[in-house]
C-alpha cells in the first residue's frame, strides 16, 4: 500500500521525536553520572560508582520500549542509568541511593546500582551477574498467570555476564516458556579488565540466539537510530508472541570499570575503531547536523538537565543518613518469626 506524503512525514516526525526523547535521557544520564563521579572523587560517595559512558544510546533505547504503567518489567545492570531514566526511575532514586539517604528506595541498606523498585517493575539487581534474568522470567510468568499478556520484560547483561551459568539457564528458560523478554547484551569489549577474547570464542554474541531458538539482532550500539529501531522491533515482536528477543549491541566501555579504575588496559586506538565512538557525541552531531536543535538550544538543554541533577543531589545531601538505632534489623516480613540475636 502506497503511503501518502503526509503519512510519511508523520512517521518521520515520530522518529525524530523518539530520537530527541532518547537523546534527552542519554544526556541526562551522562550529566547525572558525571556528577556522581565527581562526588565520588571528592570522597562524598562511599563504595563504588559505576557509569554507563558510551552505552547511553543502547540503554535508553531499551528503557524507552518498556512501559511501567503497562506492567512491563526491567532488570537494568551496571551501566543502565539511561535506561533507568527512560523507564521512569526518578533521578532522586539514584542520588539518594548513591549518597546514602535513608529516604532512598534502599534506605541505606544497599547502594549505588543495586537500587530498584520491584513493585514498579524495576528489579533491584544483586551483584551476581546473570541472576536477574530468571527473576524477570518469573515476573512475566506471574503476569501470564493473571492474564496480563500485554506486559513484556527487558533485561540487560554485558559481554562478560554472558559467561555466567545463570545467564544461560535463564535465557534458555525464557525460550522454553516463550516469554516476551528482550535480552539486551551490551558487548562493550571488556569485562572489568578482561577483553572479549578471554570471555567467549564466537564471532558475535548474537550467534547464541539460534542455539536458544530465539530471535536475535546484532547492531552498532553507538548508533542511536539503530538502537531505537531494533529495540522497537524487538518489543513489537515480543509483545506479539514471538518469544524472547536477543539484541546484541557493539560498543566500547568509555570509562573505567568503576570510577576507581583508570582503565589504562584499554588501548586508546580502540576508540578510533568501529564501535569505539561516543554515542552521545555521535547523536549530538546528528541532531545539530539535521538542525533539529541548534547549539544554543543544545546548551540550554544541558543546563536544564544539569539543574535537575544538581537539585536531586542537593536534596539527597540534605537528607538524613540511616540511623542504626532506628533500624528494625528484621530480615523477615513476618516480624514475629524473626530471631533475636542469639548468644548475647
Amino acid at each position, binding site marked *: 500500500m502506497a503511503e501518502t506524503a503526509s503519512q510519511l512525514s508523520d512517521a518521520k516526525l515520530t522518529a525524530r521525536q523518539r530520537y530527541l526523547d532518547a537523546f534527552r535521557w542519554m544526556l541526562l544520564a551522562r550529566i547525572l553520572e558525571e556528577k556522581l563521579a565527581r562526588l565520588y572523587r571528592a570522597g562524598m560517595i562511599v563504595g563504588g560508582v559505576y557509569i554507563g559512558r558510551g552505552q547511553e544510546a543502547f540503554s535508553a533505547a531499551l528503557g524507552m520500549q518498556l512501559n511501567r504503567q503497562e506492567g512491563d518489567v526491567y532488570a537494568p545492570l551496571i551501566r543502565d542509568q539511561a535506561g533507568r531514566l527512560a523507564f521512569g526511575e526518578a533521578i532522586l532514586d539514584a542520588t539518594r541511593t548513591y549518597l546514602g539517604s535513608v529516604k532512598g528506595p534502599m534506605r541505606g541498606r*544497599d547502594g549505588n546500582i543495586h537500587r530498584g523498585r520491584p*513493585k514498579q517493575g524495576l528489579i533491584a539487581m544483586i551483584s551476581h551477574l546473570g541472576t536477574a534474568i*530468571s527473576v524477570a*522470567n*518469573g515476573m512475566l510468568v*506471574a503476569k501470564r498467570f493473571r492474564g496480563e499478556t500485554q506486559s513484556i520484560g527487558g533485561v540487560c547483561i554485558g559481554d562478560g555476564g554472558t559467561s555466567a551459568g545463570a545467564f544461560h539457564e535463564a535465557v534458555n*528458560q525464557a525460550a522454553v516458556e516463550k516469554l516476551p523478554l528482550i535480552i539486551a547484551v551490551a558487548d562493550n569489549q571488556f569485562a572489568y579488565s578482561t577483553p572479549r577474547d578471554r570471555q567467549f570464542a564466537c564471532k558475535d554474541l548474537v550467534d547464541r540466539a539460534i542455539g536458544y531458538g530465539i530471535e536475535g539482532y546484532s547492531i552498532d550500539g553507538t548508533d542511536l537510530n539503530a538502537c531505537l529501531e531494533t529495540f522497537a522491533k524487538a518489543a513489537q515482536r515480543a509483545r506479539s508472541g514471538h518469544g524472547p528477543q536477543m539484541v546484541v549491541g557493539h560498543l566500547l566501555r568509555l570509562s573505567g570499570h568503576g570510577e576507581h579504575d583508570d582503565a589504562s588496559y584499554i588501548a586508546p586506538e580502540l576508540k578510533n575503531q568501529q564501535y569505539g565512538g561516543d554515542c552521545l557525541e555521535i547523536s549530538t552531531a546528528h541532531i545539530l547536523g539535521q538542525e533539529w536543535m541548534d547549539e544554543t538550544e543544545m546548551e540550554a538543554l544541558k543546563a536544564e538537565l544539569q539543574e535537575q541533577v544538581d537539585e536531586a543531589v542537593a536534596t539527597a545531601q540534605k537528607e538524613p543518613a540511616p540511623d542504626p538505632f532506628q533500624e528494625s534489623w528484621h530480615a523477615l516480613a*513476618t516480624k514475629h518469626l524473626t530471631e533475636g540475636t542469639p548468644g548475647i
Partner: protein
Amino acid sequence: MSITYLEAIRAAQAKALAEDERVFIYGQDVAAFGGAFKATKTLSKEFPGRVIDAPISEDAIAGLAIGAAIEGMRPIVEMQFADFSSIAFNQIVNQAATQYWRTGVSCPLIIRLPSGGTDGSGPFHSQSMESLYSHYPGLIVMTPATVEDAYGMLLEAVAIEDPVIFCEHKFLYYHLKAEGLPDSILPVGKARIARAGRHATVVTCSAMVHESLRAAQELVNDGYEIEVVDLRTAKPIDTDTVLASVARTGRLLCVGEAFPWGGLTAEVVSRVVSEGFHLLDAPPKRLNAKDTPIPYHPNLWRVHRPTSQSIAAALRDLLSL
C-alpha cells in the same frame, strides 16, 4: 484412612492449589510425571497449567520463583533432591533471602527439599541442608518430623510472606503414617514435646526425632525417662521450649543428621548454655553425622548418621556424667 508423610505433602499442595490461585508448582518432572517421588502426582491434571515442568536449571528455577513471588504469586518449587539445591544456592541466599530487607518487597516462596539419607542413596542424594540455609538471614527453615506437620507446615508455608525452605525427609516419605490430616497444628516457630521425660532432653528434628524416640524407648528399660523435643523449624529455633525442657531434665543431647561442623546442634547447644547455663547438671552433648561425605553402602551409611543405637549410647553416656 491412613496417610503417609509423602501423601500429606501432596495433599497440602492440592489444598493450596485449590484454595489459593496464587499458588503454582515448578520443578523438574513435577507435571505429568508427578515428581521423582510422586509428591505432585495427578496435580497437573487437577490443576491444568499450574504445575510446570522445569528444565535442569536450578538457578533459573529458583530465580523464576523469586520473580513470581515478587509479583504476588506463591510459587512452590520442588528440587528433585535437596542436594541439587546447591545449584540454586546463590539465588536462594542472595536473591530470595535479601529481597525483603533490601527492597521492602516480600518474597513469599517455598522451596521443597527432599532431604536426608536413605539406603544406597550416596553422597549426592542424601544431604540435610537446613544448617546452610539457616545460616543466611532472611529465610525460614522448616523440618517437619510428622505426617501432621508435613501437611500443616506446608500450608503454613504458603501463608507466610517470606521464603521458606521446606526440608522434607525422604526416609519418612513412605515409612511414616498417620490416621488422618490435622485441622490445625502448633504455630510455626514453636517446638513440640514429642515425648515427655525428666532425666534428659534430646533436641532434634525431622527423621532424627524418630530415632531419638526409639532410643528413649530403649532407655525405659534402664529406668530413664527421656524427653524428646522436636524443633519443627530449624529457623527460627524455639529456644524457650528447649530451655524449659532442660530446666526439667538438667541434661541436653542435640541430635542432627547433618555434618558435624556448625549447624543446628551447635546452635542449640550454644543458645542453651548462653541462656540456661545454670539449668545444666552435666555438659551438653551433640551427636551428628560423621565428617565425611554420606556413604553409598548401607553398611557405612548406617554408621555415618546417628541411629537409635548411637543415640541411646550417647544418652547413657550423658546420664552417667
